[in-house]
């Protein structure tokens, strides 16, 4: 059995490392996302019913329903959400990923990311910026107005520029960003800069009102996390081809919905194994503290699943200081991750470790055996909807979901 598992994991690694995540266009959720419906609201993390959703996610759902014109205000939206007429589902079930609340509705523009090696795609909305935004549960008039602007101006303009430029090799861009102090989850400033630089000449050459283009550029420039909504679908379409490989113990998805943390394992197909979401251990912005924090939430941990984010923390020492540790901590954490992964990445490297590849392909069995949990660094949302980000830090997934997955794995494949 041991030999079978090893072989299966090698196959999974080969598929993951062989991925070619490529940005091929911008569309809308309704047009592009498989299985999307007008009455459907996608969210981050494993499936969760409306009644169990945390504050920020509820806020985002309310905002989404208002955006689609299905409700006028909060009370109407809440009633609609609870009525049973809205279909809630995980982004992951529709080849999508969403940061924080991760709410996706019909009309929202989405990036279309394609893994050229296997042909599979993944989708993600465009990043709204920081502060009071939908993904943190805000649904005020400003939020809705911004979302509308993104659908009416931002997305179409970027789509034209992208078409003029041609497809963008995301793997290469992410690799460069890692050389520049990003890790692709909590620090995306370099990636955002590279993206703007790539498209700027084509933006400027578009036959569009200069003021609109200026606003697009200012928007991109003002949002250090714009690139996150590109790294996420890049990682998703990278790892997805490994799902379903028999006897492979590689983890193909990690995600949180603010209530639970869930994982999926290659050899166990589409099953979610969940445990209660933990609180993030981190630094808070002035005026906030741990008592304001929402539990861990979002699909952004797909980055760790693919070997960046917390797994490339040694590439982004600045992030560690911000989340309260030292560069030595970052190094130690990354080294620990080598103990629970099957391979080293051949594209994403850590300059400080002599350009060693990042630890890639988390092995469920090694996680259980060593007791080392995947290192995740993430933002912290305010527990009340709409108040935005209050800090950032390190979070540990709940051990229980790995144990549950492991028990199922042994039941299926053990002697």
């Amino acid at each position: 059995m041991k030999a079978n598992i090893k072989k299966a994991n090698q196959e999974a690694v080969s598929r993951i490392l062989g991925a070619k995540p490529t940005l091929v266009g911008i569309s809308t959720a309704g047009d592009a996302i498989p299985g999307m419906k007008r009455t459907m609201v996608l969210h981050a993390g494993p499936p969760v019913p409306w009644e169990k959703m945390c504050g920020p996610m509820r806020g985002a759902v309310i905002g989404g329903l208002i955006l689609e014109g299905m409700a006028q205000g909060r009370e109407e939206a809440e009633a609609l959400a609870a009525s049973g007429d809205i279909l809630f589902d995980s982004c992951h079930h529709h080849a999508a990923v969403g940061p924080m609340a991760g709410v996706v509705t019909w009309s929202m523009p989405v990036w279309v990311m394609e893994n050229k090696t296997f042909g599979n795609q993944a989708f993600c909305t465009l990043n709204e910026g920081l502060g009071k935004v939908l993904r943190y549960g805000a649904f005020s008039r400003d939020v809705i107005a911004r979302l509308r602007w993104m659908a009416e101006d931002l997305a179409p303009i970027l789509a034209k520029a992208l078409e003029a430029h041609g497809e963008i090799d995301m793997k290469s861009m992410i690799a460069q960003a890692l050389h520049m102090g990003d890790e692709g989850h909590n620090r995306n400033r370099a990636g955002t800069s590279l993206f703007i630089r790539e498209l700027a000449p084509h933006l400027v050459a578009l036959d569009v009102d200069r003021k609109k283009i200026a606003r697009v550029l200012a928007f991109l420039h003002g949002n250090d996390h714009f690139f996150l909504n590109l790294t996420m679908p890049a990682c998703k379409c990278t790892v997805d081809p490994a799902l379903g490989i028999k006897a492979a113990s590689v983890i193909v998805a990690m995600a949180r919905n603010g209530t639970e943390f869930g994982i999926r394992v290659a050899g166990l197909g589409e099953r979610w194994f969940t445990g209660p979401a933990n609180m993030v251990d981190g630094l808070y912005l002035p005026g906030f503290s741990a008592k304001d924090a929402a539990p861990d939430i979002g699909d952004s941990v797909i980055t760790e699943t693919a070997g960046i984010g917390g797994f490339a923390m040694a590439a982004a020492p600045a992030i560690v200081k911000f989340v309260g540790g030292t560069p030595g901590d970052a190094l130690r954490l990354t080294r620990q991750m080598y103990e629970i992964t099957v391979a080293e990445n051949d594209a994403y490297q850590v300059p400080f470790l002599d350009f060693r590849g990042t630890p890639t392909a988390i092995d469920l069995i090694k996680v259980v055996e060593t007791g080392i949990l995947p290192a995740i660094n993430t933002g912290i949302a305010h527990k009340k909807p709409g108040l935005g980000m209050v800090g950032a830090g390190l979070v540990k997934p709940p051990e229980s979901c790995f144990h549950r997955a492991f028990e199922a794995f042994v039941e299926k494949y053990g002697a």
Partner: protein
Amino acid sequence: MEKVLVLKNAYFDSAFLMLVSKAVKQLPGILDAALVMGTEVNIEILRGIGLLGPVAQSVSPNDLIIAIQGQSAKTLNHAMDAAKKLLRQRKTGIEEEGEYRPVSLQGALRIIPDANLVVISAPGLYAAREARKALDAGLHVMLFSDHVSLEEEIALKKKAVRKDLLMMGPDCGTALINGKPLCFANVVRRGNIGVVAASGSGLQELTCLIHHFGGGLSQAIGTGGRDLRREVGGLMMLTGIEALTQDPSTKVIVVLSKPPDGQVADKVHARLKQTGKPCVIHFVGLKAVPASGDAHFAGDLEETAAMAVALSKGLPYRGVKAFCTKRDAVVKQETRDLGAGQKYLRGLYAGGTLAEEALVLFEREGYDIYSNIQMNPEKTLKDPHRSFRHTIVDLGDDRFTAGRPHPMIDPDIRAQRIEKETAGPEVACLLLDFVLGYGAHEDPCGALLKTLKEAKDRAQKRGGHLAVVVSITGTEDDPQNRREQSKKLESIGCVVMPSNAQAARLALQIMKKVTP
């Protein structure tokens, strides 16, 4: 009053924890302190000594329990802070080094894929599993841990034999491979004598005496204490003999063990006959019999070493240069001032085989010796902490070391025993071993100096004389300076003999004067 704290996911090895416990216990106002991992066994032990409250609910073996008993809340809080500080020092030490320390064997092999040997001293509960993984990965194993089951030992050794790997242990305290010290071992000259041994302190004494007699070691392979039992069948002993037979650097093969089960002894003898190399055999407790062909039999560890060295140099064995001429003078000196009530011998040993060697020697001369390592149930001490008449104890035995460090590492247990023995006037002669080398205490002789001096002074005040006869197992190349160690003991009037066998014989001569 008591304070208990549980640190989650904070694993430390038992040796380090015992050092911290000891330090905390010495703080003012502290009555008792225990730092242990949250295993079921440890929780029971803490409950048993009244040091654990209702904390045990969700404690796992990866969690650290700190339990302290003190006179006031203030001293308890201070002690708890001190404990945490000491623990932190260990953690930062690891990180500051810059070298990553892997948690798993797999992780380790990713860092040094050219590893060829794993030394395992994890708790017995997990040790066999780690050894199995090491063998599966094609590595030789030195398994220091004990409390590994007989079944596990047999499975491991069978696997090792199948894979052509060394599986030294379980319960293997000493080995020297390529001249390098594994666990408790001395710095010994390289040479052409190869040893396979099922005994720790015996192997240490043997290798040091080989060095002392001018010979050298090619390899010293440990097999663990149970290897020559019928169930294990001498698997590693036979493998070791085979390896030394084929090893071009080995000219003489030495086999050292407790007396093996009959069938196993036959197998060993048969194999030794086929080696084509001169062999020296010593089964501790068995009398030497005349040589048979290339197989020579020795009566004690010193003789074993002397025979091996002679054979290795192609010289005839002429017996051990005994400490004859001055011996009578020494005996006279040590017995001249004996007090009226001084009647008994007390051998307080850290090395099990050394204790055994002394025991056998005295019994052969007709003495009744009580002990915790007696075969004879009638001579077994009812309470190993309490000597009775002539007594020789192995203080490294399991019953003494459960939850406490081994006397070779921590002299306290022997210091306390010496005080106890010599509180009253009935002891005429103390017999002690001091083991040097890697793994041992940094100053074994110095650590007991005060206790021994006080014991001698007490005897003198009573109008008598306490004879203290010792041997030092070590070489001048060991980390502890053997000359200095010897001088320290000599300076307070201890009689330092060149080997355990000679120390026992001298003590015997002394006791003959006491109780003829």
